[in-house]
């Protein structure tokens, strides 16, 4: 088990959010506001209200995640180190909130559809790698994004390595997919929309309740502020699903950014099998603001940055030591590769998968939690 340093204890303490306003960082506020206006303007010009709405939702997600310091990696680590499962309970509750919209709307054929992915060998390998990486980097897909947006020195290192790992993952996914797959497996397949929703809600709320009970038994309580954050994020996820026709996803945007940079550097990225598939091929050929995941990632950075500028969070930011920065880099690469092999991160695979009634989301959770055990042990090797 990891050795607890004061810093570790501080990192593992339940987060209380940043909603205490400090000194406003006016130069940064001006810069980030300008970038946000440019982003909204360009998205609005090309894709009209849809683009504007998604930029708005991304901003609000960034603000909510940053303001409440809502994360997955630290909550899972608290469970593994101290037995406090309250965050896990909230994460499954969030998934249940999303399922209330995703499953019935998909079943009714109203346009938006849930996120299904195959139960494959690559899923097992990738989710485990992701879990290890997110503990080393101290943040998952959304965590890296909002913490980077908020000026975290650790994430300034983790994000580029996440992007690099993500491109590497796109290169190795096609051959690893051929190692074996059971295809998509829907929980409650064959049932009516109502039946499917009932079965999945029972599973999600049952798991949330189990982790809540486990926490209470060990003397931990669910943080009410985080309960509010969970409800807010759930509502924003409904908005993204309704406007974009898909559940919210983070990591494909990183893959696209990396592929664009690699292509500009002369690497024939478009010849790799992943980038010959119709969806990724179209994304590579068009603007980075034409892909939903990529556009929302930019907006989330702006949202987190605005929150950090208003609350004075930048002034509190300091560099972690060199070993921790190395861990962030390694964690970023592992998460990047892992996200591509396992079809997403905590948001795109775990949250979207379980909320859509896809078995791959549950497997992702189990394997990422197992990977987190290794990640926590490795953190000790890196001195935190």
């Amino acid at each position, binding site marked *: 088990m990891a050795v607890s340093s004061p810093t570790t204890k501080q990192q593992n303490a339940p987060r209380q959010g940043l909603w205490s306003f400090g000194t406003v960082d006016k130069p940064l506020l001006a810069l980030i506001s300008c970038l946000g206006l440019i982003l909204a303007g360009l998205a609005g010009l090309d894709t009209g209200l849809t683009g504007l709405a998604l930029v708005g939702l991304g901003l609000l997600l960034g603000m909510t995640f940053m303001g409440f310091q809502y994360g997955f990696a630290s909550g899972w680590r608290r469970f593994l180190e101290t037995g406090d499962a309250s965050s896990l309970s909230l994460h499954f509750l969030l998934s249940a909130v999303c399922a209330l919209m995703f499953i019935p709307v998909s079943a009714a054929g109203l346009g938006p559809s849930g996120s299904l992915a195959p139960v494959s060998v690559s899923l097992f390998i990738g989710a485990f790698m992701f879990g290890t990486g997110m503990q080393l980097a101290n943040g998952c897909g959304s965590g890296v994004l909002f913490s980077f947006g908020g000026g975290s020195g650790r994430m300034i290192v983790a994000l580029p390595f996440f992007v690099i790992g993500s491109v590497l993952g796109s290169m190795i996914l096609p051959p690893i997919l051929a190692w074996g797959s059971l295809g998509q497996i829907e929980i409650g397949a064959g049932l009516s929309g109502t039946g499917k929703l009932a079965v999945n809600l029972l599973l999600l709320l049952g798991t949330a309740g189990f982790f809540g009970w486990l926490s209470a038994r060990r003397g931990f309580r669910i943080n009410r502020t985080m309960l509010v954050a969970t409800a807010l994020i759930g509502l924003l996820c409904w908005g993204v699903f309704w406007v974009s026709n898909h559940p919210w996803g983070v990591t494909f945007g990183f893959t696209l950014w990396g592929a664009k940079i690699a292509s500009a550097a002369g690497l024939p990225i478009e010849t790799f099998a992943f980038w010959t598939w119709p969806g990724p091929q179209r994304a590579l050929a068009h603007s980075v603001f034409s892909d939903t995941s990529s556009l929302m990632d930019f907006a989330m950075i702006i949202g987190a940055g605005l929150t950090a500028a208003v609350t004075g969070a930048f002034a509190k930011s300091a560099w972690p030591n060199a070993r*921790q920065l190395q861990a962030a880099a390694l964690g970023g690469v592992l998460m990047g590769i892992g996200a591509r092999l396992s079809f997403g991160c905590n948001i795109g695979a775990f949250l979207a998968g379980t909320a859509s009634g896809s078995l791959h989301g549950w497997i992702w959770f189990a394997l990422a939690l197992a990977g987190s055990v290794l990640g926590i042990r490795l953190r000790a090797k890196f001195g935190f």
Partner: protein
Amino acid sequence: MNSPQQTTSKISPRLIYITFISVLFAVAIGDHLTSPALSNLGAPTELGNACAPCGAPCVDTKPTAD
């Protein structure tokens, strides 16, 4: 005074952050202005025989008869 957990550096994360975010958005805006844009936002799962959010096609691993 910095704690042992922090690195003493003359370059603050704030300065690196400003540089990084400015370059990131400059490159993204440059890409947007030089690439065709879709009139409707796209996601990889919308095209082809996609079986996953990243657009990975469905893989049939069952043996097929000759």
